[in-house]
């Protein structure tokens, strides 16, 4: 009786790594990974060798050395006696403030333009199309310069605001004067605006590298409490309305809850405005809004706004027309249809590409170098790099910081995206 032949023995031969489809995919991956590792090792080795050949070391101790240079716009206390690390932080805050203002402004502008581009009003829709096409098709750097040059060339010099005794005697007015009730001076060096100051501030608590400003914290706390109380009031009003069918009058209560505590606190701390005054060379006092900041932020808002407008338009068009028709059938007006029906659904399509616009905007702040805006690129990647000669360290650190900022923005926006996306049941 013939026995059935044995099942083939499950032996492994080397050639199977190439010819057996079960193993081939793995083989290729392993080879690519090894090549990748070798490339990394070669680069590292090359760097180490070249650093050694130049007699350079790789360390970050320069961050704790006195910086020795001054920065125009400092949101945190800084003098030329501070360390390079402090200068880095100043640059970082300057970057973040542009990014924050830019993201908010670009979103508002983008949503408005995106909606208006779909308007039935022919003229409005065309104007918005022209805006979008012009701004997103011309490089951002040019926009920054186009905005910066006119405002710094046209505005009068601080000396034009001066009133000399002879001019007073002759009854002449100075060539330029402050606007908005004589408080804001627009000069060719920047916009000098009044600064809110407190005559009885609460001081601050020093916690190592960061110091907590109690004045600011108390305002935030009071404002937060007011908003919570306001929401409680509205919730109660709604409950009453549902129970009785009559909504109690709340507007004056809301107004009091929202405004009064903060106003009292501000008054108690002695809020007053410091008006910029002309001295020997410049205006002093108040806060200086540099033209570099204005131009950079404005250009970023206009440029990124154009992209966001397209994203918003795409999002709105992605919502089926039946939704609008159904809303109209229910008797909703176009405005309410847009804000209650269309936009909430469109958000699901809008958010993911919006994240990348925020990331772009944040990274594009580094173009501030064109108008000498001292952001992270200008301090750490500019002056510090130059004065210490630590190119590799500064560049790596700067990349790491931009990467971190981008990942944080991305993470926050992803959380938001999760909260608005379609809840599947």
């Amino acid at each position: 009786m013939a026995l059935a032949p044995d099942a083939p023995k499950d032996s492994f031969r080397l050639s199977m790594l190439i010819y057996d489809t079960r193993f081939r995919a793995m083989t290729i991956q392993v080879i690519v990974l090894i090549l990748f590792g070798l490339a990394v090792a070669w680069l590292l080795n090359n760097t180490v060798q070249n650093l050694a050949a130049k007699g350079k070391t790789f360390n970050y101790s320069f961050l704790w050395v006195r910086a020795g240079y001054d920065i125009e716009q400092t949101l945190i206390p800084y003098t030329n006696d501070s360390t390079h690390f402090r200068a880095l932080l100043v640059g970082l805050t300057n970057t973040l403030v542009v990014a924050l203002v830019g993201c908010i402004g670009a979103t508002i502008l983008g949503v408005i333009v995106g909606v208006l581009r779909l308007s039935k009003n022919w003229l409005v829709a065309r104007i918005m199309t022209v805006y979008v096409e012009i701004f997103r098709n011309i490089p951002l750097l040019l926009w920054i310069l186009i905005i910066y040059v006119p405002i710094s060339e046209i505005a009068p010099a601080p000396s034009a605001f001066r009133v000399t005794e002879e001019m007073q005697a002759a009854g002449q007015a100075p060539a330029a004067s402050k606007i908005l009730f004589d408080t804001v001076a627009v000069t060719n060096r920047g916009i000098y605006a009044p600064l809110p100051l407190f005559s009885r501030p609460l001081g601050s608590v020093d916690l190592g590298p960061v110091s907590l400003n109690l004045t600011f914290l108390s305002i935030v706390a009071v404002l937060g409490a007011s908003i919570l109380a306001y929401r409680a009031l509205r919730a109660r009003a709604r409950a009453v309305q549902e129970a009785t069918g009559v909504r109690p009058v709340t507007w004056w209560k809301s107004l009091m809850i929202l405004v009064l505590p903060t106003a009292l606190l501000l008054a108690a701390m002695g809020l007053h405005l410091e008006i910029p005054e002309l001295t020997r060379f410049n205006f002093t006092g108040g806060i200086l809004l540099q033209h570099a900041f204005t131009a950079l932020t404005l250009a970023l808002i206009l440029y990124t706004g154009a992209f966001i407008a397209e994203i918003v338009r795409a999002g709105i068009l992605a919502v089926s027309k039946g939704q609008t028709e159904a809303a109209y059938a229910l008797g909703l007006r176009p405005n309410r249809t847009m804000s209650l029906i269309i936009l909430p659904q469109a958000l699901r399509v809008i958010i993911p590409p919006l994240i990348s616009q925020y990331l772009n905007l944040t990274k594009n702040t580094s173009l501030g170098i064109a108008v000498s805006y001292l952001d992270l690129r200008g301090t750490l990647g500019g002056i510090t790099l130059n004065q210490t000669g630590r190119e590799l360290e500064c560049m790596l650190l700067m990349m790491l910081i931009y990467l971190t900022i981008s990942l944080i923005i991305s993470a926050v926006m992803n959380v938001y995206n999760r909260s608005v996306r379609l809840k599947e049941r």
Partner: protein
Amino acid sequence: MHKTILIGALTAAGLAAGASAAATVDDVKARGELICGSNTGLTGFGAPDANGNWQGFDVALCRAIAAAVLGDPNKVRFVPTTGETRFTALASGEVDVLIRNSTWTFSRDTELAFDFVAVNYYDGQGFMVKKDLGVASAKELDGATVCIQTGTTTELNLADFFKANNMTYTPVNVQDDSQAQQQYLAGACDAYTTDASGLAASRATMADPENHIILPEIISKEPLGPVVRHGDNNWGDIVRWTFYALVTAEEKGITAANVEEVAASSTDPEVRRLLGVEGDMGAKIGLDNEFAKRAIAAVGNYGEIFEANIGEATPIGLARGLNALWTQGGLQYAPPFR
């Protein structure tokens, strides 16, 4: 993602650092061209003229080196560098020598690993203001806005000067002289500060130089000179001794016009050694014996270069001052050719 970015950085760093530290003079000879890091445009020191030919005090030294090494003062490629990019350009090997109003300091010499081989201009930092501002001294600048080039020693001196005099200022950071001049003229700053020679050069190119004054205070020492990479001593010697040949030539009265005649007729042993009539000076630095003669013939001696580019007869109108020969009360002093 981390990894990819790190690799990118390292690639860039690796490539930048890839230029070997081997003999620069061989590279220059093989290339048949000297690459000279120069200013982006500072009239009198280094700037292209209307025909695109580079002219200036620093440029002349580049041409002298090209004449000495390659035998032709026109075999130079000028790479314009800003205050920020110049040292990276030199360290990465993009330029062979940097002759661009660069101040010799301790940290640049040591930490940045460069060699300042000589001082071709003894300078100091000054301030320029508009006349109608009514300022007569830098000590009156309290509260002023000052235009300053980033990545320079002047930036640090400025901070120190205002601190030492208990004054405040607002800096306006600019990239190079032309941007500084534009900002200053537009009134974005009250004062412009850089090396006094640079101020004079800037003022000379303005439409109304008589309306601007350079304040009397000189707030720092700025020895400006040619820079080479640390470690290639032979190349450093070539640059150094080419420069000193020009200084010695002035001391000995050798000019571009009479160099041939002096070489043929002089009996002064040092002149004969300098011009390669006797001895083997050139061979000792890897060049031929007539390197100094060619350099002098190409651009003239130190005094001629000074007078032609930035001297009192030019619009820039700088006096020799500290840059006179030591025999005339200045600091320019060449070690003996022996």
